[in-house]
């Protein structure tokens, strides 16, 4: 049953050459410590990369690429693989030239340099950032064959930053200040309205991800972190925070990021990300490559409303469910990694996972969502994902009865 199984007879007694013969790497020197001042993945991992779907947009400069979830494990997304979404391309900004302004309904309109920001108290939190459009191509039915494409608009990193509240208090929010406009310095001038309650709760003005400086495509030198809320609000290249008494209803909260229902009406300000999960392995890009026998199913679960105390997994299309095992830290508004191990009999499987969050919410089926929302709402598709596995271990994105 093993990929390393030997043929019988002489070969078996002799063994595999990679063992019985000294290999170059067992004998010859490798690279010195001066070769790679900033390291990169192995040459054998070149297939592990962000991928885009060209037909989604007119131009790669205002587009998206996807995290290769099927190649990852644990809960941390490496910075080099965190999906990208931007509306005017990745801005490359010299931190010395960057400023953050607070204006509007405050006692003092302020300008901060990056050095100023580094003098406020900081916090560290692991949070997921999910684009509201993640799985948006799947509203009408199974479409993209790979969890990178169906679920890869998400990343989960440790952010370091200053509490937004600290900065707002430094400026002094006037009693009439009920909303905040966050604005980016990139060519899209990204703006979103955020209610003051959230701004004063758990938002961060972050300059580090996974320990190091934000990556340019993630808003270097500074971005907003809006835990549990849709990724579009996490304004990158953050340059301005305006306090106001009403929301702004800008393009990204009217034309986009509003959820059109079947009756022609549209939900606005759908900020929270509902609990969701996906099996990352096996999945269409990562089929089972072994025959029957011990098999690991693994995946990710998260909720914009808290932690994930439980994930259920089915291998028979939902006739019977099993509680999965969660391994790794269970942190608020962070990805959780789950596993379900079983003995595969080699017959076709229908795999699904179902997240439960700490509010008691249970991830719905896609049809349950469609009943409420129709199929034209684009955003917030957190329905249960199904992978069909055939006898050869190949996986396909399907929907089931």
């Amino acid at each position, binding site marked *: 049953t093993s990929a390393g199984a030997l043929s019988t007879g002489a070969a078996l007694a002799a063994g595999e050459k990679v063992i019985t013969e000294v290999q170059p790497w067992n004998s010859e020197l490798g690279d010195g410590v001066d070769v790679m001042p900033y390291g990169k993945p192995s040459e054998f991992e070149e297939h592990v990369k962000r991928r885009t779907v060209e037909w989604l947009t007119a131009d790669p400069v205002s587009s998206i690429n996807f995290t290769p979830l099927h190649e990852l494990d644990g809960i941390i997304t490496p910075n080099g693989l965190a999906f990208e979404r931007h509306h005017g391309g990745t801005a490359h900004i010299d931190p010395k030239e960057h400023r953050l302004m607070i204006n509007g309904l405050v006692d003092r309109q302020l300008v901060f340099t990056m050095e100023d920001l580094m003098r406020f108290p900081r916090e560290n939190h692991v949070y997921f950032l999910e684009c509201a459009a993640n799985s948006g191509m799947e509203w009408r039915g199974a479409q993209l064959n*790979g969890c990178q494409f169906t679920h890869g608009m998400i990343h989960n990193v440790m952010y370091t930053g200053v509490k937004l509240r600290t900065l707002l208090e430094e400026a002094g929010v006037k009693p009439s200040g009920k909303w905040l406009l966050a604005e980016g310095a990139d060519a899209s001038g990204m703006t979103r309205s955020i209610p003051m309650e959230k701004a004063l709760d758990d938002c961060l003005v972050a300059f580090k991800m996974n320990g190091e400086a934000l990556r340019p495509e993630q808003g270097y030198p500074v971005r907003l972190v809006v835990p549990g809320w849709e990724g579009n609000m996490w304004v990158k290249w953050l340059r301005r925070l305006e306090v106001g008494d009403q929301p*702004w209803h800008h393009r990204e909260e009217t034309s986009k990021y509003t959820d*059109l229902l079947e009756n022609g009406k549209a939900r606005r300000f759908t900020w929270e990300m509902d609990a969701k999960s996906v099996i990352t392995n096996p999945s269409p890009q990562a089929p089972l490559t072994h025959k029957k026998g011990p098999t690991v199913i693994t995946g990710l679960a998260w909720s914009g409303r808290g932690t994930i105390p439980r994930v259920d997994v089915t291998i028979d299309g939902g006739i019977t469910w099993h509680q999965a095992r969660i391994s790794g830290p269970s942190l608020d508004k962070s990805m959780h990694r789950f596993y379900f191990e079983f003995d595969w009999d080699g017959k076709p499987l229908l795999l699904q996972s179902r997240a439960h969050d700490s509010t008691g919410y249970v991830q719905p089926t896609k049809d349950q969502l469609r009943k409420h929302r129709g199929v034209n709402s684009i955003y917030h598709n957190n329905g249960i994902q199904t992978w069909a596995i055939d006898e050869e271990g190949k996986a396909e994105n399907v929907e*089931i009865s």
Partner: protein
Amino acid sequence: AGKYGLGREATPDEVKAWDIDVRPDGTGLPKGKGNVEMGEELFIDNCASCHGDFGEGVDRWPVLSGGHGSLKDERPVKTIGSYWPYASTLFDYIQRAMPFGAAQTLEPDEVYAITAYLLNMNDVVDDEFELSDENFKTIKLENEENFFMDDRADKELKEFTGEPCMKECKKSVEITKRAVIVDVTPEEGGGALE
């Protein structure tokens, strides 16, 4: 000073330079005006290569006009005219982000003119209309009332909460939809797809 005394006061010119956002109530509109005719010319010169002469869209670039009454259709066409709730959004967005690749290069009068033109293309104002900071608040878009505040808490959360079935939840199960038949996944998808 605040608790920490960090940062410095923004100067009036600095606030003016960055405080360009516009709200539905007209807050933030710069002084200025522009009419449909001027807007047409500006649009053809600066915008039509992507959005089409009438905002109908070129290739996959965004469609800016049409789609009236399509929101309940199988394939709704969501445009300024058919979907957007506020005209202020249009002014604000053109001023901050368009033309794509040359953002923040238009003068206020130009933004008024182009906005007027796009409102005209969307049957909101007539051919002779001149838009200005003074009459801006008279513009109403037809779909405004169809937006409502997120009601998932009332409509969905309760239904989606509670202990789900774990055993014998169905008699049988069948595949109803397949991605392979749709076949729109990038070929170079990695793993077994190659």
